[in-house]
């Protein structure tokens, strides 16, 4: 994987005349995790939505590989996002959901491999509607694994996961980062990710 860099300069976000954060600077390079902490309503999700480009920052700029993300050719090619809802279609099967995701991106693992890695082998033909909240979360993780996306932006990735799944998820994050990926995440849980890889922002 080529080295990538996400750079934020003087980001600020104002909501209902309340300043959620201002003057936020950070640089994230390949091989690093950025953990965003903060109380409820501190602006964690707002910050993530700015980082995905859905929302414009009220001031400041974001650069992906030294290009402003609005003009960057590669930003959306390189970025994956898991929000509060997983972006899965309830009435499609696990396999159909992943097929669709692969058709919109570049492929790394096959669907079977990805499902096996997250422990969902045997669920290929199951409609997402019949899966538990934790299984859906893992299917969303499988989507990250089977498409080539260096930058993962994860909003509360550990919600509704059991302890074993959280461990598994953290393992995938570590491997991804070791291979030169970048991860930005928010979390209420204490993570056991190695500190050496981690940057923290407290909002």
């Amino acid at each position, binding site marked *: 994987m080529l080295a990538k860099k996400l750079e934020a300069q003087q980001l600020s976000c104002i909501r209902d005349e309340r300043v959620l954060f201002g003057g936020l600077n950070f640089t994230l390079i390949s091989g690093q995790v950025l953990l965003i902490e903060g109380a409820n309503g501190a602006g964690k999700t707002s910050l993530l*939505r700015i980082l*995905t*480009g*859905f*929302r*414009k920052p009220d001031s400041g700029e974001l650069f992906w590989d030294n290009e402003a993300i609005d003009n960057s*050719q*590669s930003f*959306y*090619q390189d*970025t*994956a*996002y898991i*929000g*509060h*809802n*997983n*972006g*899965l*279609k*309830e*009435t*499609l099967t696990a396999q*159909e959901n992943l*097929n*669709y*995701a*692969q*058709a*919109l*991106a*570049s*492929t*790394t693992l096959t669907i079977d491999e990805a499902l096996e890695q997250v422990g969902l082998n045997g669920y290929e033909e199951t409609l997402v509607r019949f899966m538990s909240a934790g299984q859906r979360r893992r299917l969303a993780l499988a989507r990250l694994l089977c498409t*080539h996306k260096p930058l993962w932006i994860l909003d509360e990735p550990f919600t509704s996961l059991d302890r074993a799944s959280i461990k598994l998820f953290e393992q995938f994050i570590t491997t991804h980062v070791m291979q030169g990926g970048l991860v930005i995440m928010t979390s209420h849980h204490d993570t056991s990710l190695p500190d050496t890889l981690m940057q923290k922002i407290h909002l």
Partner: protein
Amino acid sequence: MKQSSLFQAFGAVIKRDLLLAYRHRAELINPLAFFVMVITLFPLAIGAEITLLKRIAPAIIWVAALLASLMSIENLFRADYDDGSLELMVMTPHSLSVLVLAKVTAHWLLSSIPLLCIAPLMGLMLHMDSDVIGILLLTLLLGMPVLSLIGGIAVALTLGLRKGGALLAILVLPLYVPILIFASSAIDAAVSGFPVSGHLSMMSAILFLAITLTPLPTAAALKMSLS
């Protein structure tokens, strides 16, 4: 590692939407049933006046088709917006306008094709002449995709609202007027025995204009709804 082509992405969006529609196939019947019901009400209300029915039949069928299309287009982006798959669609390297065009194409296939199949039957029920029915079908074939394309803009604009239904109708119906005018004048010309090629060319021009221009504002409005 292989990057998917724009063509593949276009096909995947259509395929997924058709598959989703197949899984919810009961909902596909609703606009069609609505179309048939509205048309059936007219002869009941007007009575068995064949000459009057014959005269207003094309107008009835067109207005019913317009309302049926409006009814089904409401859900064009709603489900994707609610379950987060719209975010995924925006976050692809592909042009969002092209993917929007794919979604509208799927909607057109699902809403217009059944309607086109049943429209001749409705025409016969209203005592239309068979050659006029042919022209009616042609105008529907050229006009219905325009309805889906224009409707897409309004749906994307009202996506952030909880109850956008009424506003959607108010936004969209005025924009449907030109296509309705050209369609009915084409049919009028056919009834009077004049050539219709001029009207049909005009409708084709509107169609191609809509295909090239409407996906851009729709994509912009979708991005706006996510912020």
